[in-house]
């Protein structure tokens, strides 16, 4: 089948994801951009017998080589043969969207502008003369309402046409005769470079003093001459070139928009958002509402998830009984029942909770609340010496620490990146949730939501204190300035939310089927040998290892070997803490057995340990990749110490209080 590559670029909050989802449905995969750890979203659809591979580029407002996200977009658009580039435009903020278009038009020619959210614009009394705009910009424009699926078929048809019939006349931004001459002059002085960016694009970037592109040239002889030309132009302009370029682009765009805007009833008002914002970002109310929302989320994760979990447990038991009753050799039966079903099964049970967690978080994201959460946390972040934007990767950490650490890319400052990466492992990821659900279900049935909330809260607190401590010791640099857009509040769009929840859950499932599956087999092996008749006891390898390290945990109240080995396997993947207990006791007897070994106090101490004691292996590798081996090792040792210390202190203090 013929294949085509389509890329989607655009500002954040222009409905990029919605359009991407509308085109590809669930035929998506999330991977990494080669060489870096920025998330790459890909998907495909088939239209008129052609397979269209769609790549969702990182959402940005501009294109500089200084930010990792934007560099990826630039690299991708220049190195890959992108057949059609879709540029998202927000009908409510057309000027800014077209500004982005002028930047992109410098190096990709086959463009379709997707004018999204036209319904909102119409509501505000705005309409645009689209065919006139198409003429002015020499591009095709498709109107869409992404969340109502309006315009998607037209868009597919237009993409198809554009692939077949590449236009010959393109939009070229004109900066004025004099300035265009200077661009040419620098172009002629440009040395032969070993990459494929269009010359004019590089020249403009160098004129803007983009650090990345300037550094590519700095050591070349020709650079001196180019610098002279730039200085000469600035003398004539009487202002920095970058300022001139911004003003020029916006003034031309402003003219264009003025020409094509059809009707404007009155000044736009989105008063509701404004009113809500006043409350949500209020210095006193904001944090209270934030905590309330988080608490509600955790409550729903159990309230709705637990009944489904109980149902899954019945099914799992059936499967287990089925295998127990068929004819198999003793060891293979043990491997399947004691190893795989008990191990993987005890993790799979938490699937409903995990899905709900991601689903509810996706709702927060889709409504626009996340950006507000960053604002609320900004003061706190500043107090502890971080950038306001650090709140976003930290919150992401509740889902999974790995993408959260990748998310520190949005921070421009190395110091913010390191400190945030050090704190993220203390953000309780969804893999640790099964541990809490299991233990609170046994020991704190009445206050399950509250207890788990307190653990998350302690994680945050310890993360914050660690940062404060380290920023005091290691760093004394200023943070880079904060500026975040607050998107308009809207009702979450169900398809985005469900797809987002599902894709993340799929990742969890995949992990259960691969990493955790493998882990449970190793675990089974260690439990089975060298004395098969004594499965899962002290006499076998697992028991011996557990027995060896368990004395360390005695002061924390869980100095028995099962807990020791569970924690060791938890380093591999945190879900395995539960799997390990499952493999010892069987998932159906888990509650009774754990109630025998733990007390409420020691179970809380154990949950604290599971929360804090170490980033899992994958997280460790990502930290190493992002900020270097030294910080990764440091993070490991620090969390190990903090985990043991907090867990022990908690157990000792509360045991004392209870005893006295």
């Amino acid at each position, binding site marked *: 089948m013929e294949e085509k590559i389509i890329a989607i670029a655009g500002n954040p909050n222009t409905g990029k994801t919605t359009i991407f989802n509308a085109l590809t449905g669930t035929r998506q995969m999330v991977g990494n951009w080669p060489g870096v750890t920025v998330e790459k979203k890909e998907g495909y659809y088939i239209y008129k017998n052609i397979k269209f591979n769609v790549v969702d580029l990182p959402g940005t*407002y*501009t294109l500089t080589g200084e930010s990792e996200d934007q560099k990826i977009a630039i690299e991708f658009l220049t190195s890959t043969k992108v057949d059609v580039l879709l540029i998202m435009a927000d009908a*409510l*903020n057309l*000027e*800014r969207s077209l*500004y982005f278009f002028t930047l992109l038009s410098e190096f990709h020619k086959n463009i379709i502008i997707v004018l999204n959210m036209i319904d909102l614009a119409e509501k*505000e009394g705005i309409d645009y003369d689209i065919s006139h705009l198409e003429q002015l910009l020499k591009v095709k424009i498709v109107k869409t309402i992404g969340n109502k699926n309006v315009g998607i078929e037209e868009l597919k048809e237009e993409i198809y046409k554009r692939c077949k019939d590449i236009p010959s006349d393109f939009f070229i931004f004109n900066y004025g005769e004099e300035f265009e001459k200077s661009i040419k002059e620098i172009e002629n002085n440009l040395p032969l470079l070993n990459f494929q960016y269009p010359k004019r694009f590089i020249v403009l970037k160098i004129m803007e003093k983009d650090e990345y592109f300037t550094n590519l040239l700095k050591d070349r002889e020709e650079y001196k001459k180019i610098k002279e030309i730039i200085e000469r132009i600035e003398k004539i302009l009487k202002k*920095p070139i*970058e*300022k001139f370029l*911004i*003003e020029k682009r*916006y003034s031309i765009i402003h003219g264009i928009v003025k020409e094509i805007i059809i009707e404007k009833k009155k*000044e*736009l008002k*989105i008063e509701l*958002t*404004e009113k809500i*914002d*006043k409350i949500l*970002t*209020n*210095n006193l109310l904001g944090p209270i509402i934030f905590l309330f929302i988080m608490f509600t989320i955790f409550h729903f994760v159990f309230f709705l998830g637990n009944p489904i979990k109980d149902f899954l447990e019945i099914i799992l038991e059936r499967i287990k009984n089925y295998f127990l009753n068929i004819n198999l050799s003793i060891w293979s039966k043990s491997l399947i029942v004691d190893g795989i079903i008990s191990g993987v099964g005890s993790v799979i049970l938490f699937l409903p909770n995990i899905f709900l967690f991601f689903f509810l978080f996706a709702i927060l994201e889709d409504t626009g609340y996340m*950006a507000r959460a*960053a*604002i609320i946390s*900004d*003061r706190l972040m*500043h107090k502890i010496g971080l950038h*306001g934007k650090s709140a976003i990767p930290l919150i992401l950490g509740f889902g999974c620490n790995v993408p959260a650490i990748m998310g520190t890319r949005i921070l421009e400052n190395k110091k913010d990146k390191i400190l945030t990466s050090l704190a993220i492992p203390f953000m309780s990821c969804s893999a640790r949730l099964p541990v809490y659900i299991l233990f609170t279900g046994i020991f704190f049935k009445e206050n399950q939501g509250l207890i788990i909330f307190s653990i998350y809260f302690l994680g945050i607190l310890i993360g914050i204190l660690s940062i404060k401590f380290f920023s005091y010791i290691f760093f004394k640099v*200023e*943070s880079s*300035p*904060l*500026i*975040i*857009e*607050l*998107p*308009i509040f809207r009702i979450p769009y169900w398809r985005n939310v469900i797809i987002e929840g599902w894709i993340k859950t799929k990742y969890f499932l995949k992990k259960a089927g691969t990493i955790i599956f493998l882990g449970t087999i190793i675990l089974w092996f260690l439990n089975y040998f060298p004395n098969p008749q004594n499965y899962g006891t002290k006499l076998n390898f697992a028991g011996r290892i557990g027995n060896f390290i368990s004395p360390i945990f005695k002061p924390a109240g869980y100095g028995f070997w099962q807990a020791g080995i569970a924690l060791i396997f938890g380093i591999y993947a945190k879900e395995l803490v539960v799997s390990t207990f499952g493999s010892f006791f069987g998932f159906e007897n888990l509650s009774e057995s754990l109630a025998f070994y733990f007390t409420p106090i020691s179970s809380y101490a154990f949950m604290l340990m599971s929360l804090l004691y170490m980033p899992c292996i994958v997280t460790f590798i990502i930290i190493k990749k992002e900020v270097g081996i030294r910080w990764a090792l440091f993070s490991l040792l620090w969390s190990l110490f903090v985990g043991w210390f907090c867990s022990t202190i908690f157990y000792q203090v509360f045991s004392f209080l209870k005893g006295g």
Partner: protein
Amino acid sequence: MEKLSSVKEGKYKIVDITKIGKLKKMCDLGILIGDIIEVIKPAPGPIIIKKGNITVAVGYGMAMDVIVEKIE
């Protein structure tokens, strides 16, 4: 003329953004010199400003370099 970091709620005109890096960042988000903005939430904490349909939160450090003028 005042700094954005020290104004109260109300309508203002942006007169200048003194650091070129900060100017670039504001312009990327669609806030330009000469624009009329509304301050929705003043300091302490990030300052929230609005221009048309664009709402942006600006950190204190950033707001120190944004010079505004009260309107009316």
